[in-house]
């Protein structure tokens, strides 16, 4: 309604700039973007919000009231937004050209390569919900649909995202757990060292380490995303954000539990190309990622999935490709080494 208002334009420019900047922040860009929105909304709340106007503390009511307050100050029309409850989640829809933040969304959305998209409107809901309900965290997702509407979703989240790196004094934490940063070169020398001392364990170490980390990653994601494909997509996004490489879901069959995934610029393939190969002959080397994916898929499909790297970028392919299938049923664990003393 106040499209021509230069202040709206300026506000969009500011959010665009923030969004662009946060995309360059190595970790947790989306998280910080949310924090920026929440922070600015908080100033508005402090001045215009009155808890006593609330009829109930249901999230949908809180958000509706918030919209009414915004209308009262002449910022928007509350009726442009549809809000409804869906279980624990909140669904919002708005005609895209009615949204005051559309310029920001459309222009950042047009840019390629942005690893996340923020809906400022949902960010403001996150802010008011947190204000009223306390430390309750909501995840947001939005889809600018072809029918001219934006469909947004807010859902409660109990876990911090894996990619959220924070610093408390001299302590760095990832998703609340202590972490430290390692250069690729250091990693390469670590692996070379293992190979020199115990070559036979190298693959096993990498696979098992990957598997264990994949398990905790996947279990957490599974709580927030019960739908297998959605969960996998989230995990792949999160792994991509963590820097393992750009992961892409090629095919997904729920009934066969058969998944094909590609990874562009895998950290491990890149390490081999940069600092030398660990093995005598060119071969697939992303055992750690293989382990991670096997664990993720085993959690998602609730049965043991085995994942093979069929080609690797370190062997000259365009990308690494992983094919995952369930463990055959009849498996009895293989043959036992023969002991001649039993004869």
């Amino acid at each position, binding site marked *: 309604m106040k499209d021509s208002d230069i202040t709206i334009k300026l506000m969009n420019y500011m959010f665009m700039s923030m969004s662009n900047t946060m995309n360059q922040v190595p970790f947790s860009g989306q998280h910080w973007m949310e924090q920026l929105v929440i922070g600015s909304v908080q100033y508005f709340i402090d001045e215009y919000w009155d808890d006593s106007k609330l009829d109930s503390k249901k999230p949908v009511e809180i958000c509706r009231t918030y919209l009414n307050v915004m209308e009262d100050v002449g910022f928007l029309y509350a009726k442009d937004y549809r809000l409804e409850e869906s279980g624990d989640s909140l669904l919002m829809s708005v005609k895209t050209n009615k949204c005051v933040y559309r310029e920001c969304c459309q222009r950042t959305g047009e840019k390629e390569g942005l690893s996340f998209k923020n809906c400022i409107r949902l960010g403001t809901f996150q802010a008011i919900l947190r204000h009223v309900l306390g430390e309750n965290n909501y995840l947001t997702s939005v889809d600018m649909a072809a029918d001219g509407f934006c469909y947004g979703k807010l859902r409660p989240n109990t876990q911090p995202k894996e990619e959220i790196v924070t610093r408390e004094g001299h302590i760095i934490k990832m998703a609340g757990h202590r972490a430290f940063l390692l250069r690729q070169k250091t990693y390469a020398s670590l692996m070379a060292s293992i190979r020199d001392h115990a*070559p036979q364990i190298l693959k096993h170490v990498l696979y098992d380490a990957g598997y264990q980390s994949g398990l905790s990653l996947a279990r957490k994601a599974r709580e927030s995303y019960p739908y297998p494909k959605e969960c996998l997509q989230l995990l792949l996004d999160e792994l991509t954000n963590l820097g393992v490489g750009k992961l892409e879901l090629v095919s997904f069959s729920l009934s066969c539990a058969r998944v094909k995934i590609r990874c562009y610029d895998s950290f491990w393939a890149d390490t081999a190309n940069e600092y030398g190969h660990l093995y005598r*002959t060119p*071969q697939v080397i992303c055992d750690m990622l293989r382990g991670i994916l096997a664990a993720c898929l085993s959690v998602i499909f609730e049965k043991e999935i*085995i994942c093979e790297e069929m080609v690797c970028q370190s062997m000259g392919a365009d990308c690494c490709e992983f094919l995952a*299938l369930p463990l*055959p049923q009849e498996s009895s664990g*293989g043959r036992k*080494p*023969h002991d001649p003393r039993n004869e």
Partner: protein
Amino acid sequence: MHRAYFGVEGLDRNLEQGLSYGSQIMVEGDSGVGKTVLAGEFIKEGLRCGDTCVYVACDEPPTVMREHLLSFKVGTPAYEETGRLVFIDAYEEDGSTEKYVLSDLRHLEKYFTLESEVLRSCNGPRVRLVVDSLSTLLTNLEITDVIDFHRTRLKQLKKTGILAMDIFVSGVLEPRLITITSHLYNFILKMSFNGSRCNPVRQMQIGKVKSQQFTSSTHAFTVSPIYGILVAADTGVHK
């Protein structure tokens, strides 16, 4: 030029340049010494390197090798589905559910035809072939037929650049036949039990035929359910 290794550290260490595709490996050893485990390592290594692996199961059903590989976390279905791992069932004769079955063990030409057909259908650039064990196929046959078979087959494998591992169970074939046969291979590995009866020690003797000269070294090894074949350091057992 691609070079190949067994995928067994202590063994590969002894092959400076590795093996070339088109060479033939003879593995001879006592029953239970670890020939099939070695075959498993060889296949695992091949799959990692992007090779197509063909395993001819003569002494056990192919599924035994499948499960063996699975126990080492090798997802055989993914490789079988993409044609990178192929089994030939030369064990069941009738009633096998495998795609490739050798229905008649009495005629070497039938085996040869089947093997050639399977190898021809492999579309990868490099192929590994393991016959476990070839000695089973050669029992009860005329020595001249066997030698004709060997010559024709090994020549063909060499020509088509197949990296082949033929396994022979000790004591199954006449020593004379083994001697004649062994001259046809580029690389010979003998595996045996040594030490006392209560404390048997596994040993492998690496023999290479290089410009008519045969060099050899002996190594002790163990078979681990996690790491497969573990070869002791070179300072190990010497005869």
